[in-house]
């Protein structure tokens, strides 16, 4: 069981009535899909806010960063960096800088 840290942007942690940084327990391999599954299970109001409900694709103006890398286009079933899986670095969910 891994404990993964996830940092949400303002709009999402206020929507979830949660802290900005969350800890999620992941039973299997730590992937984007596994982290988002755990996030949506714990905070169901975030379902559809980060990825499309039906296709599972990342919403176009949401980005994922960790360990100084842009992981936005990482395939959902590819393991995240070891530092994220070990809880040493958070996975950052970021609203893209666009619009006003």
């Amino acid at each position, binding site marked *: 069981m891994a404990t993964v840290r996830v940092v949400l942007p303002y709009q999402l942690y*206020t*929507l979830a009535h949660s802290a900005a940084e969350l800890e999620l327990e992941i039973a299997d391999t730590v992937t984007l899909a596994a982290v988002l599954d755990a996030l949506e299970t714990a905070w169901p*109001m975030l379902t559809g*806010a980060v990825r499309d409900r039906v296709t599972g694709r990342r*919403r176009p103006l*949401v980005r994922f960063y960790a360990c100084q890398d842009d992981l936005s286009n990482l395939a959902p079933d590819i393991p995240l960096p070891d530092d994220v899986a070990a809880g040493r670095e958070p996975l950052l969910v970021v609203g893209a800088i666009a619009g006003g």
Partner: protein
Amino acid sequence: MSHIRVLVGTRKGAFILTSDAARRDWRVSGPFFGGWEIFHIAGSPANPDRLYASQTSSWFGQVIQRSDDGGASWNPVGNDFRYAGDPGTHLYYDGSSKPWAFKRVWHLEPSPTDPDTVYAGVEDAALFRSTDGGASWQELPALRAQQGAKWMPGAGGMCLHTLLLDPVNPARMYVAISAAGAFRSDDAGASWKPINRGLHSQYIPEPEAEIGHCVHRIAMHPTRPQTLFMQKHWDVMRSDDAGDSWVEVSGNLPSDFGFAMAVHAHEPDTLYVVPIQSDSEHYPPEGKLRVYRSQTGGRTWDALTDGLPQQHCYVNVLRDAMAVDTLDACGVYFGTTGGQVYVSPDAGDHWQAIVRDLPAVLSVSVQTLP
């Protein structure tokens, strides 16, 4: 003693404005949902403390919020809007066909009798209903069967923005879609018919087509639901046969382009519009913010200006941003893209700004509370 609650949706959050019946001194609460676009907030007539809000964002999608205490606290409910079956395609600006795709909820219309039943008008245009307080949503798909493949977006998107529930006949409802036109159901949404006869839109290939008109708003008085008023892209229209036919009543308006429209709470032939210069210039003619009131059901209009800026004013008033209360005298309210929310406590004769510096106002609805 009665009091008033004004529910304001803006580009960057929601605000709730409250006053006693005098409507002179106002308390402003908010922002709620700061940073999100709030397209509409509506209260249940059956339980006025039950509020629904459409919270949306290009980044994070659609959320429906519900309050059970008049807006003091909110919780997200269901946001799963799936079209029934394969919705197919609709026309796009360039003449191509695009797949139907849910984008956002423009308008929420709670049932007059059941606080847990609420309708949602959405983009891409469709009508949804929830019967469990917003937890789940089901489409009423027969509407799209009305030549939906030929519908095309207006400049603001292909949105179902207006829904009127007939207070006398619970099976009858009306919707308006930009840019498909107006439609009526006489069987609670099981089937629909276009009601656009008499509309003339010179900007479409067939100006008197059965569908394709850019209807901006329809309004009715609850005691005379056979009579409808319409603010179209251009033209102010009236129907006295539940939309089966329309006649133009723009009369002496300085411009018959506009978005917002409201009917006086106690006078079925008194209505309000805010003329806008043109579809290219979304601001009032001559830089003067004027509400026009007709007390003859259209055709003859008087400018209402007392308390409104009469120079250098270039705001817009959007389609869902005008409403009335039911006090005597009737209060009229509207919000602007400049962030002002105005009230007239005397049916339009005098106006004052409740607030002046909100984000751009998308919607205004009003609750008259005991």
